[in-house]
């Protein structure tokens, strides 16, 4: 029996290897996409400085004044945030600058100094920047420095009330390729699961190859086991090639554990294989399977955060994104690859993906036809 299952797997692998289309769509195409998107968009983040402003005590006039002045600067994209969250975002490379405005106490000290005589030092405006991106840091500090100087001028004309206190923070440098690799990996697994499985199975069925298996004494379930093993193997190989090329050629960094990434690849393969089986079971012809597969695959390809952060997608369709089975896979893979997160941190999403897989498997078994 095992020998028979292996014979099915081996034969199916051989056919896959001889199928140039499958090789192209499964391996070459995702890598081309990664190269293309990665090189086109790799410098985009330098155009605007995503600046997080921390306002410790709202309603103090000095801080409000600085904030208003910062808002006037076109290259700064200002968001008001808590200090801790803002610094974490800076470390993840999601912010270019974090500006901490003076709090109530500093302002009071300043006011006291005015009244009582002895000169207190200027009130600090702390600016955190990302050390790993020198140009961004330089530009950012330049802009903030100019704004502060202008404020000083406007307030007193005599002495500095405000002073920039710069502090570098080493962000984990997440390049476009680092970001893309997990997305492309997840997408490739989804593609070959949805499109590959249904194309192959409906093709077999249309050419009556499945029916031939029924005429042999080999148990049909064992035959399907062999086919599933072949897809799992090819998906894993395909994923490994993409991973290797991503890391070695595109210089993408994986900061998390490779083992976790492999586990995720396996989970993703099985889940989308299952969905692919369901699609091929539910469709009568290869064309129908192809259409249904595309209808399911395309929204996921563009909405699940594979090519760009899901934050860039309009608010109105955000809820939909949460329901797509590819989203949790992309998020878990990206978490592991770019933020070194553990698999446990993604249990919920992965369980959701597993629920999809089980539901699809039920449909596949229920509707499976040999001819």
């Amino acid at each position, binding site marked *: 029996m095992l020998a*028979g299952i292996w014979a099915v797997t081996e034969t199916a692998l051989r*056919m896959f290897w001889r199928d140039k289309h499958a090789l192209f769509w499964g391996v070459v195409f995702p890598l081309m996409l990664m190269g293309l998107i990665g090189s086109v968009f790799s410098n985009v983040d330098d155009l605007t400085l995503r600046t997080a402003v921390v306002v410790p005590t709202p309603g103090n006039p000095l801080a409000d004044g600085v904030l208003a002045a910062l808002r006037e600067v076109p290259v700064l994209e200002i968001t008001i945030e808590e200090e801790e969250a803002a610094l974490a975002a800076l470390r993840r490379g999601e912010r270019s600058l974090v500006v901490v405005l003076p709090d109530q106490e500093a302002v009071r000290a300043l006011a006291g100094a005015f009244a009582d005589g002895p000169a207190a030092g200027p009130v600090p405006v702390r600016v955190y920047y990302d050390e790993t991106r020198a140009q961004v840091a330089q530009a950012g500090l330049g802009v903030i420095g100019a704004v502060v100087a202008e404020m000083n001028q406007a307030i007193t004309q005599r002495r500095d009330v405000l002073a920039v206190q710069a502090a570098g923070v080493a962000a984990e440098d997440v390049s476009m390729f680092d970001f893309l690799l997990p997305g492309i990996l997840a997408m490739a697994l989804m593609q070959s699961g949805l499109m590959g499985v249904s194309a192959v199975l409906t093709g077999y069925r249309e050419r009556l190859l499945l029916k031939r298996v029924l*005429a*042999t*004494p080999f148990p049909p379930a064992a035959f399907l086991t062999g086919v599933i093993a072949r897809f799992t193997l090819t998906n894993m190989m395909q994923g490994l090639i993409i991973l290797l090329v991503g890391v070695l050629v595109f210089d993408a960094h994986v900061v998390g554990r490779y083992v976790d990434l492999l586990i995720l690849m396996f989970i993703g393969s099985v889940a989308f294989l299952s969905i692919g089986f369901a699609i091929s079971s539910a469709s009568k012809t290869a064309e129908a399977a192809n259409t249904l597969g595309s209808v399911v695959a395309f929204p996921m390809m563009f909405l699940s955060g594979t090519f760009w952060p899901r934050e860039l997608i309009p608010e109105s369709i955000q809820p939909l994104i949460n329901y797509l089975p590819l989203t949790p896979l992309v998020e878990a893979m990206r978490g592991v690859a770019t933020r070194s997160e553990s698999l446990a941190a993604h249990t919920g999403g992965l369980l959701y993906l597993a629920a999809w897989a089980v539901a699809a498997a039920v449909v596949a078994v229920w509707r499976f036809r040999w001819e």
Partner: protein
Amino acid sequence: MIQVMGLEKEYHGRPVVRGVSFDVQPGEVVGLLGPNGAGKTTTLRMLATTLRPTRGTAKVAGYDIVQEPLKVRAHVGVLPTDPGLYGRLTAAENLRFYGQLCGLGGAALERRIDELLEWLGLAGAKHQRVEEFSKGMRQKLALARAVIHDPPVLILDEPTVGLDVLASRAVINFIRESRKAGRSVLFSSHYLLEADRVCDRVAIIVGGEICAFGTPGDVCRAVGAATLEDAFAYWVERRAGEVDRRVG
């Protein structure tokens, strides 16, 4: 070797095969003859266990087609209407794959593959991909596949359809040699001359019912026909007449 007992098949309530009964003895060649849509393929598929009968059953090589389909499959070689070979695999790979599905393997399987390819004149195409094969070559390969596990019973659906004279002869020889090897052969055909020459007995099936069953000579004599073709025409026309009468 094959004993058919009141086999029936309905599609959506429409009877397609109605209470068919006949038998094939060990080492006997039986031809199933009938016009298009008579139910030949449906009958053969039920016997090959790829289609479940609505009612009735049959024993093939001693096993019940409904109760023990896996046993039946292990003892019957099937040539379907459409050969269904893997185009991206070579002749040898196709045979090896089916051999493995039938539980064969190792040197014995390799020997069997060479032997069959040699026998059917495909030795030169052993490592050629099947997508490059002509129709005759495919049919021969499908025959080789049918007997890869050396089954005592062969079920062939229109084995000579679309083949040229030489290829047809090769197939007929294959049937004759199979009989010589002690196999029972049941095959369907539209070529009555061919059936007359090779069959020990023939069954004429029209509208899902067997109208005549016996040696070609007996079948002709029963309706006073000179040739099998005349007997065939007699039964087809008579059935058409019955339908007319029923409708009119």
